[in-house]
């Protein structure tokens, strides 16, 4: 089970890089979906086949792996965009930055006062690396949809950390968190649709009328 967790986490990191380096939106959405699906295995591989772990895994799979990606895919189909054009920072520099933050996460995690059972594991560094990759995506891309993907990736990073602590969150709260994520992305989808209708583009650089 331990090996399976580590394999999942390594794949999660690879998917971070794939998303940071790809310009095709459809592929990015699928990568984040796959990442969500992989994450949904982790509660089971770490805590065994308990009821709580199964519900958590099922919820994550449905939401992060299936439903939200489907929502986003139908959104890009509707507005007919395929590619991210001209990100604020190019793809190669973003990838290099991504590599740097991933390395930094691994080094940083070594310095954290972790519990003995978490020391040397992949959970904490992967969580941090995914979080930072999400941030990078959020800040360097102009399309509203890629920004939402960045937000989802950031959530994924937090989710990985949360798996270590699943007993801290009662199931009811967990369910509420999922529901909020779903509704949040749904509302973001609606706003994206309105942006597209009003500005005929999903580029958020057009959203710059409000300033001092």
């Amino acid at each position: 089970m331990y090996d399976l967790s580590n394999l999942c986490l390594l794949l999660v990191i690879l998917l971070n890089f794939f998303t940071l380096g790809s310009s095709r939106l459809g592929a990015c959405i699928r990568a984040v979906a796959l990442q969500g699906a992989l994450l949904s295995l982790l509660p089971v591989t770490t805590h065994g086949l308990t009821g709580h772990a199964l519900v958590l895994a099922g919820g994550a799979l449905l939401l992060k792996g299936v439903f939200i990606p489907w929502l986003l895919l139908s959104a890009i189909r509707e507005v007919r965009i395929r590619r991210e054009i001209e990100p604020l920072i190019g793809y190669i520099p973003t990838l290099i930055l991504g590599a740097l933050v991933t390395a930094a996460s691994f080094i940083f995690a070594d310095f954290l006062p972790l519990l003995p059972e978490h020391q040397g594991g992949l959970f904490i560094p992967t969580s941090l690396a995914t979080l930072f990759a999400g941030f990078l995506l959020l800040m360097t891309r102009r399309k509203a949809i890629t920004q939402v993907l960045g937000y989802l990736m950031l959530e994924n990073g937090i989710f990985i950390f949360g798996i270590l602590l699943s007993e801290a969150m009662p199931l009811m709260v967990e369910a509420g968190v999922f529901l909020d994520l779903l509704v949040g992305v749904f509302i973001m989808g609606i706003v994206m649709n309105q942006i597209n209708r009003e500005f005929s583009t999903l580029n958020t650089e057009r959203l710059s009328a409000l300033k001092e």
Partner: protein
Amino acid sequence: MLAVLILFPLALAALANLLPWYRGRSWLLPLAGALHLALAGMLVVHPGSAAAAGAWIGLDALSRLVLLVASLLFFGCALYATEYLNLRRDRGNTVMVPCLLVFLSAMTLAIVARHLGVLWLGVETTTIASAPLIYYNRNRLSIEATWKYLLIGSVGIALAMLGLLFIAYAALGSGVPVSLQLDKLLADGPLLAGPWLHAGFVFLLVGFGTKMGLAPLHTWKPDAYGEAPGMVGALLAGGLTSVAFLAILRGVQIMGAAGDLAMARQALLGMGMLSLLLAAVFMVRQPDIKRMLAYSSVEHMGILAIGVGIGGLATFGALLHLVNNALTKGCLFLSAGNIHRAFASKHLSEVRGAISALPLSGGLFLAGFLAITGSPPFGPFLSEFTILRGIFASGQLVIGALFLILLAAVFIGMGATVLAVTQGEPMEPELHSHDRLLLVAPPLVFLLVVLVLGFFIPPPLSALLQEAAALLEVNP
């Protein structure tokens, strides 16, 4: 009883979706507001037996205080909303009414939460429920404001979740059964692992500080408050910010229980001073009245943070200021909304002579300005003065002097804009709308309450404030 307080607005929200009658739907808002206020008042006066130690929801002095403020503010805004929505039939109320009711429910949930996970849920739900409210006017500017609000708010609140998980991890290390239940955390405070707790508090402060609008996390605020209808601005600036502040205070309580109150206070003090400074800078020559109010909100969030950051008497002052700020902001945003509608502009270049055109709304706006900048005899004068006394009593002379200078700068900056708007003669004699009873009565009542609080704090309120301030002092 508490569960009813959370659930009945949701039931009314569902009803609002089914009701095909426009005015009836609007009137659901004051109905919910009145019921909520009555129930909340009853619960505040007769708290009954103390909440069970492990319960997820319950009331302590802090939550009673914020509950009362939020409930009163919502009721006033709901009355205003009936008339406002009647004037805005072009935009409809099928989204507005349910969203406002869900917003009320989520705010209540966050206020009464005794479990940090539940608290997080409540605050996150307010973000989602208020996004459609900001988008009410459906133009390019409101899309931009909504998008920024949603994205910045969601990322902020996600970081708050990380903070909660760090706090849980702090418990994991010391062999304490992991729980995010507040009473358990407070009881186990000294056992929590220091570094994780500190990191957790910082993330909580950043996350909920984003919702509260403390500088430098306030960037969404002027846009969102500027583009939202006045009534929504009032609820966000008076209600939601108080709730987010309560969430930060929960973090302060835990830090206090762990014996790290000094660090929490320093962090609050730093952010508070920065908020005050940035707000003062941006408020000078601000040509947009609603954006000016947003910066004023940043300023007052800073004052709240400074009060709690100093501690002692200043904490009491800060909690009193929470009440004053919420109600004064209610008055200001509602009257600014009236002015905006009558002149069809909120820009200084087009709005002149508000008092001669709209004697009531213009007068309320001017009086609200005097109140919020801490002029006697209004309540904020008393609370700001108390905070100032606390600062000097703690010996922080430099901070006290800076605090005074920045307040003066805000007064001058805001005064220039407000006087230009209210004085003189209107440029166009034709107004787009006029004062109506329900559009001026709620802000008037808010202002009167603030005025009364400037002269006299009722003993029960004073006791409640003392009790709430004591919760933030615990240092076992």
